[in-house]
C-alpha cells in the first residue's frame, strides 16, 4: 500500500548545522507513527518542513499523491495536514472557541468547533480567552483546532508535554481513540518513550539529523544504534 506521506531524502541546513541530513521515511495511511530522537535530533524541524514552515534544501515530500513543496503554505491545511505545536501557538486574546474555529478556515471537518471542544472535554471554557489557561488545557485546545479541519494526517508535536504519569497513559488511549473516531493518520513527536512505544505501529529514530533506525516499536528498541544514541557508547562509558 502506498504511503499517505513520503519524506524523500530531505536535507535542511541552518548555517553550518545540518538539522536534517537526507532523511527519508514513509507514513502509511491509518497508522500511528512515532518520530523519536534525543534533543536536537531534528524532529520538530521535520514537522516544520512537512507543514512548509521551512523549505528543505534538498529532497521531496509527497502527501496523498501531491508534491507538498509545490503547495503554498496556506494550502497545506486544505490538502489535509494539520498539526499542533510543541510550545502551543494559539491566539491568546481570542476565545477558546474562536481558536478552534480558525482550524476550520481552509477546510472543514465533519464535526463543528463546539463538538470538538466537547470531544476534548473543554466545552465549559468555550468563551474564555485562551490567555491564562493551563498549558495542558491549551494543548487540548490546539488538538481540537487541528481536528477542526478534518485532517487526513495529524502531526502532534510533544502532546504529552507538561502532563503527569497518569495523564500520559490517558493521552495514549485518547490518541488511539481519536485515530478511530476521525479516521486519521497520526505522526507523533514525543519524548515519552512509554507513550510512543505503547501506541505506535511504527517508529522512526532521528539522531543529529539522520535517520538511524525504523520499524516496529520492538525492532527499534532492540536496535543497537538506537540504544547507543540514547545512552551513549556503553563500552566507552564503562
Amino acid at each position, binding site marked *: 500500500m502506498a504511503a499517505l506521506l513520503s519524506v524523500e531524502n530531505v536535507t535542511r541546513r541552518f548555517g553550518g548545522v545540518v538539522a536534517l541530513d537526507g532523511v527519508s521515511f514513509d507514513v502509511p495511511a491509518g497508522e500511528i507513527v512515532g518520530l523519536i530522537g534525543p534533543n536536537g535530533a531534528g524532529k520538530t524541524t521535520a514537522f516544520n518542513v512537512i*507543514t512548509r514552515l521551512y523549505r528543505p534544501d534538498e529532497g521531496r515530500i509527497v502527501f496523498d499523491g501531491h508534491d507538498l513543496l509545490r503547495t503554498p503554505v*496556506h494550502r497545506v491545511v486544505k490538502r489535509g495536514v494539520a498539526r499542533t505545536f510543541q510550545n502551543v501557538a494559539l491566539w491568546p486574546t481570542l476565545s477558546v472557541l474562536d481558536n478552534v*474555529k480558525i482550524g476550520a*478556515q*481552509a477546510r472543514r471537518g465533519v464535526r463543528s468547533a463546539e463538538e470538538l471542544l466537547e470531544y476534548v472535554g473543554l466545552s465549559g471554557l468555550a468563551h474564555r480567552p485562551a490567555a491564562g489557561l493551563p498549558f495542558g488545557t491549551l494543548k487540548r485546545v490546539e488538538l481540537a483546532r487541528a481536528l477542526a479541519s478534518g485532517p487526513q494526517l495529524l502531526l502532534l508535536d510533544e502532546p504529552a508535554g507538561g502532563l503527569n504519569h497518569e495523564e500520559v497513559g490517558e493521552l495514549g488511549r485518547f490518541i488511539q481513540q481519536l485515530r478511530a473516531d476521525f479516521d486519521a493518520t497520526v505522526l507523533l513527536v514525543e519524548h515519552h518513550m512509554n507513550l510512543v512505544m505503547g501506541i505506535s505501529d511504527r517508529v522512526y529514530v532521528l539522531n543529529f539529523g539522520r535517520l538511524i533506525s525504523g520499524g516496529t516499536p520492538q525492532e527499534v528498541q532492540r536496535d543497537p544504534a538506537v540504544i547507543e544514541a540514547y545512552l551513549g557508547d556503553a563500552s566507552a562509558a564503562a
Partner: protein
Amino acid sequence: MADVLQQVVSGIASGGVYALLALALVLIYRSTGVVNFAQGEMAMFSTFVCWELLDRGLPYWVAFFLTLAISFVGGVLIERLVIHTVSRSQALTVVTVTIGLLILLNGAAAWIWKGEQRTLENPFPSDTFDVGGVVIAAQDLGIIGVSLAIVLVLWAFFQRTRVGLALRAAALNPASSRLHGVRVSWMLALGWGLAAVLGAVAGILVAPTQGSFDQNLMLPVLIFAFAAAVLGGLDSPIGAVVGGVVLGVVLNLVGAYIDFFADLRLPAALLLILGILLLRPNGLFGRSVVKRV
C-alpha cells in the same frame, strides 16, 4: 436642561461620524500596523463619487450603496497596488506612503471636480421633533441611526462570520494564520476595503451638515477621528466608537456654552491627542503592548 440635552443629541450625531472614521483608522492600524493618514481623503473622494452619481441622476440610496461598493473596491486596490508593495518596509515608510496618498487624493479630487464648492443631497428631512421640550433634529437622528447600524453590522461581521474571524486572526498573528489556511494578504486588502466603506459613510453623512463641501471636507474630521481613536485606544474598535461619541458630545457642549471655544475645537482635539499620548498612550480601551527584549 432641555437645551443641554439638545446639544448632547447633536453631539452624539457628530460623534457618530467621528466614530465611523475612527473605526476605519483602528481597522487599518490593527491589520497593517500604521495610522492611515489618507483615511480622510479616501472618505472625501468617496463623497465626491456619491455627489457625481447623484449629479448624473441616480436615486439617493442607489447612489449611496453604489458609492460604498466603489469605495470598497478602491480600498482593496489601494492596498493591493500601493500598500502591499511597501508592506515589508518599516512602519515609517508605510506612514509616509499614506501621507503621499493623502496629497494625491486631495489633488486628484481638486483636479477632477475643479475645486469648486458642491452641495451633497441631504437624505434626511429638515424636520425637528419636540420630545418633552427637547428639540431633536431628524438629521441628527438619521446620522445616529446610520452610524449605529454600520457599527452593528461590522461587529456582527467580525464576531459571527468565518471571514470576520479570519480577519481578526490575520491582524493578530499573520504567520500563524497562514499556517491555518488563511489568505493573509487578501485579508489585509479586505480590511482596507472595509475601512474605505466606513470612511465613505462618514463623508456622505457629514457633507450635507456643512452646507457645501470641497476637497478639504475631511481634513478637520480626520483630526477629530484621530483624537477619538487615540482616546479609545488605537487598537480598540469599541474604544473608537466610545471615543468618537464622547468627543462629539464634549466638543459640542463646550462649543455651545463657551463662546470663544467654537473656533478652538481643532486645536483642542490636537491637544487631546497630545495629552493622551503623553499620559495614557493606550487610550481608554487599548491593550498595552509588552515587548520582550
